[in-house]
């Protein structure tokens, strides 16, 4: 009996997993036509004209890790304008992880990705309210080293030399800044030399941490990240055209519980005041 019980438990797990696999299929076969203009939710709070919400409401935003500082500042700013009733909950992470979470039902109302790949993937699955999508920001890719480093590393090409033992990159399959890094090195023709010394992180903040502590000799992050962390310095920008533009799209999700607040916040993000905050952190507005 003692030996049968773990067997039964394991079997239950396996069956559940198989069931999960089956359950995700229907989501992929939903109709793919994006609605022309998203109809307002039935339980909507009407977006207030004066911009102040009178009832308490939660707003979940899943945003890429590289947006941490500006988003936190903007949250405070928004609450000043729209009143304290909108409780903004920020969830930061690697864009790939956030995408996976949304696919599996995370309660996010807004998705702010660090690359178009993840937003496009969600759109294909019919989870994005495409009418609300705005490709809001652009970011540059830079090579960083620890602040006090004296290594002879001053360009992306130098990464292939023996001067670099370890380079920290975001995971190329799921972290946008990692994807861009790979593109840059591929364009330069040195990816094979670089990948053997790469250590991959699940999000860009991890990359920063490894470089800042000196455990990695260099890393590739966004210009905005390099600026925000005093322990690292950017030594080179990615050459023009070496990677697809790093565009940050933001959109309201189809299953948003709080559509009205989401739309309102999205509008806020596009105001001059909000954009100024982003620019201050090093982002460029995508015109």
């Amino acid at each position, binding site marked *: 009996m003692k030996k049968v019980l773990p067997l039964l438990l394991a079997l239950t797990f396996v069956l559940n*997993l198989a069931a999960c696999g089956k359950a995700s299929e229907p989501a992929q076969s939903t109709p793919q036509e994006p609605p022309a203009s998203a109809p307002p939710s039935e339980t909507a709070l009407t977006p207030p004209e004066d911009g102040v919400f009178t009832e308490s409401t939660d707003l979940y935003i899943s945003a890429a890790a590289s947006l941490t500082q500006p988003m936190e500042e903007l949250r405070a700013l928004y609450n000043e304008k729209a009143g304290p009733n909108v409780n903004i909950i920020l969830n930061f992470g690697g864009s790939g992880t956030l995408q996976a979470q949304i696919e599996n039902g995370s309660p996010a109302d807004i998705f702010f990705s660090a690359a178009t790949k993840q937003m496009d993937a969600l759109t294909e699955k019919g989870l994005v309210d495409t009418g609300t999508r705005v490709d809001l920001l652009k970011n540059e890719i830079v090579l960083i080293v620890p602040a006090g480093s004296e290594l002879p590393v001053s360009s992306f090409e130098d990464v292939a030399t023996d001067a670099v033992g370890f380079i920290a990159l975001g995971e190329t399959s799921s972290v946008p800044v990692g994807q861009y890094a790979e593109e840059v090195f591929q364009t330069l023709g040195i990816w094979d030399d670089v990948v053997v010394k790469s250590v991959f992180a699940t999000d860009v903040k991890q990359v920063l941490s490894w470089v800042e*502590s*000196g455990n990695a000799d260099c890393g590739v992050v966004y210009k905005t990240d390099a600026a925000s962390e005093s322990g690292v310095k950017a030594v080179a920008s990615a050459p023009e055209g070496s990677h697809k533009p790093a565009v940050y799209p933001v959109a309201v999700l189809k299953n948003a519980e709080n559509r009205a607040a989401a739309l309102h916040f999205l509008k806020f993000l596009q105001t001059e005041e909000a954009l100024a905050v982003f620019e201050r952190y090093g982002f460029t507005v995508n015109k």
Partner: protein
Amino acid sequence: MDYSPLWISLRTACVATVFSVALGLVAAYYAVRLGRVLKGLVDGILTLPIILPPTVCGYFLLLFFGVSGPGGRLFEALFHERVVFSWYAPIISATVVAFPLFYRTMRGAFEEFDRTLIHSGQTLGLSGAFIFWRVILPNCRPSLVAGTVLAFARALGEFGATIMLAGNIPGKTTTISIAVYSAMAAGQTELAKKWVLIDLAISFAAMLIMNFAGGGARRRDTGVAR
């Protein structure tokens, strides 16, 4: 499919378990003999890795074993190698988080052990080592097995601390847990599921083996000690 995470995980979990058991036995044996205050202090420190979130653990490990940390510098001076991102870094982080589980289990068993058995062994002229290996441990078999299972499971499932200290380097430090996470993040759900099933199979096999190893003592059990 790249199967390196399987070997890396197995290697990491097995070696970490061996270290946890060895260190845990020593620590538990001596901890029991400490005075109350000192025992509480030692306990607290040794149990810390379970209470701390793995990422915090990982952060401390990184601080300690990193290039500018005391452990890291000592290691580099002795072995001319860096701990961070090395192939044995996952073993270190897995040991740190698995050790407390084994230690606490054995400490509990030793505390409750029937002291008269130890005293009778002593008055009969048996050495401390004999008493430990041939009287105490054999009568603590259930706890030994439980502790080892816990340690192995924890070592196998370790993620947060490992990813900080060892990073994600496919073929070198990428364990099954990290592979699952990466696959999920990249939207490769089929790959993720495959790894989960492999992980389950390993855990299940390990548990069967250990239950088998621990269950042979029916005839001798008197419930005297745990």
